[in-house]
């Protein structure tokens, strides 16, 4: 049978396109590690298959997908379906497109946007946008490729094999193979990996826990108006406009961090004021869950997996409280009673040392150090400090007794020693709520 030149060309082009597509799919499949997105997509397909809509969707960064348990919110609010669309480092542009996708597919009545200061100020990471991109489809996905990425990053957005090429490494490939094998043995069900397990419609259960008083002090600088990027605010406005257009009631929330984080950031109140003002201007409800009354009892350090994220247990507690607050908001009630009015009020109520930090400066004499101590605490609290050597059996041996001094001029510390620094409000060992840190030399 004679094939015309045109037909040969068409056949050749189609075959070439097929070879390219097969190569991209094969390579990306081999190189792409397992992610929460796979189970999230599966859950959403199951919801769609049942013909269900979601009453509430939540979007935001990592504190979103680790803090809000859909099942608990469904029970608390009497909803049939709640979807947690949070993802790691989700930018405001990512939240916009994620929300757009969820609204189009599940027609929620309510949407919650989890907001942070970083969302207004940090550079948008390619990786975080790629995570959102994997959750989008159709024209929404194409629009996000156009608007959410720079020229340099567009190749990552268009080709997964490019994005995951760093996994073309024996160790990484072996790990991916092992994960896929475990997935298969688990019949496609989620499994525990690195202390996390995908749990329920976007929520991830984390098993990590910080011992009470042992939150390490981070150095996250100062919040400043000059840090705000105009294009981030633009996406915040776009989210508000999208919800208005689609008849979705939008609420803003800030998920909880540890008390260390709240006390540690200079001008943290600036972020609170910004969002309160923004919410008021746009007729939105905003809650900062860090200001929950009774949070010290409800969400102690042990409910956090790290300085900034609740663990699974903490998420369940928080979701229970939040569903109560939301229910009252939705009924038009006043929920001010649940919260401290501002950071000052919160810190006034704080009666413990939240976190302690020590800096060891080597002195001229070998093995001797100057120790500079500092702590984060409630406003009415005076810190006392003590230094110990930790013995091999775990017992503590005092090297500097309780003192209010923040500078210890000279301490002898040999290599291989562990030093424990403790801070308390009473200046003795009787206190329950001691803050402490261990330093290995």
């Amino acid at each position, binding site marked *: 049978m004679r094939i015309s030149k045109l037909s040969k060309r068409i056949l050749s082009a189609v075959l070439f396109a097929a070879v*390219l597509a097969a*190569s991209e799919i094969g390579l990306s499949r081999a190189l792409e590690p397992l992610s929460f997105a796979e189970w999230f997509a599966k859950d959403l397909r199951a919801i769609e298959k049942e013909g269900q809509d979601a009453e509430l969707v939540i979007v935001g960064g990592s504190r979103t997908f680790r803090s809000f348990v859909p099942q608990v919110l469904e029970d608390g609010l009497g909803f049939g379906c709640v979807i947690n669309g949070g993802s790691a480092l989700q930018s405001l542009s990512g939240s916009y497109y994620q929300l757009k996708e969820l609204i189009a597919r599940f027609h929620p009545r309510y949407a919650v946007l989890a907001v942070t200061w970083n969302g207004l100020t940090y550079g948008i990471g390619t990786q975080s946008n790629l995570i959102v991109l994997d959750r989008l489809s159709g024209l929404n996905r194409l629009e996000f490729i156009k608007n959410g990425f720079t020229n*340099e990053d567009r190749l990552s957005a268009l080709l997964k094999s*490019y994005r995951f090429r760093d996994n073309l490494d024996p160790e990484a490939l072996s790990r991916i193979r092992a994960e896929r094998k475990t997935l298969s043995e688990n019949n496609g069900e989620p499994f525990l990996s690195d202390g996390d397990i995908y749990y329920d419609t976007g929520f991830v259960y984390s098993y990590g826990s910080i011992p009470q008083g042992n939150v390490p002090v981070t150095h996250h600088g100062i919040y400043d108006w000059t840090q705000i990027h105009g294009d981030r605010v633009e996406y915040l406005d776009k989210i508000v406009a999208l919800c208005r257009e689609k008849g979705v009631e939008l609420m803003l929330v800030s998920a909880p961090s540890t008390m260390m984080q709240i006390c540690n950031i200079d001008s943290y109140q600036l972020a609170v004021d910004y969002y309160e003002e923004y919410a008021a201007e746009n007729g939105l409800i905003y809650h900062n869950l860090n200001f929950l009354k009774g949070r010290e009892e409800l969400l102690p350090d042990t409910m956090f997996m790290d300085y900034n994220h609740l663990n699974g247990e903490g998420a369940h507690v928080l979701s229970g409280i939040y569903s109560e607050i939301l229910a009252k908001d939705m009924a038009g009630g006043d929920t001010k009673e649940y919260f401290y009015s501002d950071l000052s009020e919160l810190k006034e109520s704080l009666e413990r040392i939240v976190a302690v930090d020590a800096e060891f400066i080597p002195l001229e004499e070998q093995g001797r150090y100057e120790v500079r101590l500092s702590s984060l605490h409630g406003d009415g609290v005076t810190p006392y400090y003590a230094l110990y050597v930790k013995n091999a059996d775990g017992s503590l041996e005092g090297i500097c007794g309780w003192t209010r001094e923040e500078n210890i001029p000279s301490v002898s510390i040999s290599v291989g020693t562990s030093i424990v620094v403790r801070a308390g409000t009473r200046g003795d060992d009787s206190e329950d709520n001691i803050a402490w840190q261990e330093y290995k030399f």
Partner: protein
Amino acid sequence: MPLVSFSFAIFAILTVLVYFLMPGKYRWTVLLAASVIFYASYGVKYLVYLAWTVGVSFLGAGRIESINAETKRKSSEGGPGADDKRAVRAAGTARKRRLLAFIMLMSMGLWAMLKYGNFLIGNINALLSLAGLGWQAPGIPLAVPLGMSFYVFTAAGYLTDIYRGKYAAERNIAKYALFVGFFGHIVEGPFSRYDRLSPTLFAGGRFDYDRLLEGLRRMLWGVFKKTVIADPVGIAVSTVIGSGGEGFSGAAVLFAAVLYGVQIYADFSGYMDIVCGLCRVMGVQLEENFRRPYFSGSVEEFWKRWHITLGAWFRDYLFYPVSMGKTAQRLGRSMRSRFGAEAGKLVPGYFALIFVWTATGLWHGAAWRYLIWGWLNLAVIVCSMHLSGSYDKWRAALHISGGSRLWRLFAVVRTYLLICAFRAFSISPSVHAALSMFGRLFTSFTAPSLEGGIMSLFTGLEPRNVIAALAGTLALLTVDILEENGKWESVKASCPMPLRHVAMAALIFSVVLFAGQSPDLTGSFIYAHF
């Protein structure tokens, strides 16, 4: 805009689309607009230099052609005898020569000032210091615009051709501007000749599907060579040679020198593949700049296969004029009378070669190491020309056939190593560093281990990139061997379509998976710095 980048990809796609949407006779205007945009992307202010070269050379060529026409008319007018006609032609030639010299000064003089001014001032200052004088001349605070070393020479070649009456001058300044500033050759060549490029440049070729595929395949091959071979290999080269070999063994220096040969070939020929491929899509035929140069059996042959258009330019516009000029001819006659006919025949050529290789060295860079590089090439070429007869005798005495494969292999490897050795001067930070590196070959030649030694030279690269570069080099070598033996076309033709598609997909995904460090897959091309 870098050639391997998203912005260039968008630029190329839009240029091709608009080119073919435009009616045929206006398509060259699309190339002109694209060339202006392309060059302006490197800096709008550089357009001023380009405009100056275009303006001066266009006007000059027109004037020279007028003198040509006037001289021809006057000498063909009835009446004057042969002597008068000779006088008219001589007067015309003298006028032309003065005008040509003036225009060259205007055009090339600016380039020379920007490129060599600080080199000259640096040497003067060194002499002043040696003489104990405190005063130092100030430097020129301007850099050579990108591509100026290419377009100034393109214009100079055109002017010389008009001077020689080779073809008629272009009457349309916009077309002439396109010829000089064409994006296909402005950054790294090739050096185009007006009579060879203009037919396809201004023709507004029809869309041809086979040409489109051919062009795209060639572009892909160029991107592969640049990103998978040249850039990763270049990391090891700059690790060793960038530091002048300090802290590295002689073996590492040798390895880096050999690698540099791979890097510069893959880089430069990769660039050529990209621009030639893009031009091919639009039916524009650029001249080839490479013909499997590393298969050369001698340095002389190498320069007929490497950067072919540069060599041809120096041959046509420097070597022939100098070797046929009065000084060289006088020298030849003098040599003939003292040393015989052979000397009389060769010396004018040697004399011209001194100019050619000095100019070639300086063209590559304004520094003594480039001059030394040029002179080393000259020395080897002259020696092998002079001793070619003796070589034949020695080979015959040793019963080695000059046509044998073994001899050819020896000649090829010898030539490659010589070229790599000469390049040590052009890429080292200084002459001293280059000599120091040579010294290491003899004083501290310790073979590095595969694990900590060779791999550690590829700083910051994953082993997969190094393996891919090696595989890419082998692929490049295989293609070159097949081309050299005239088998490449038949291999391509006999390859089944699915296999061809798999090969293309393999090239594309090799670039995607193994291309160098930069997020947009690019590093700058080497020859753009000349």
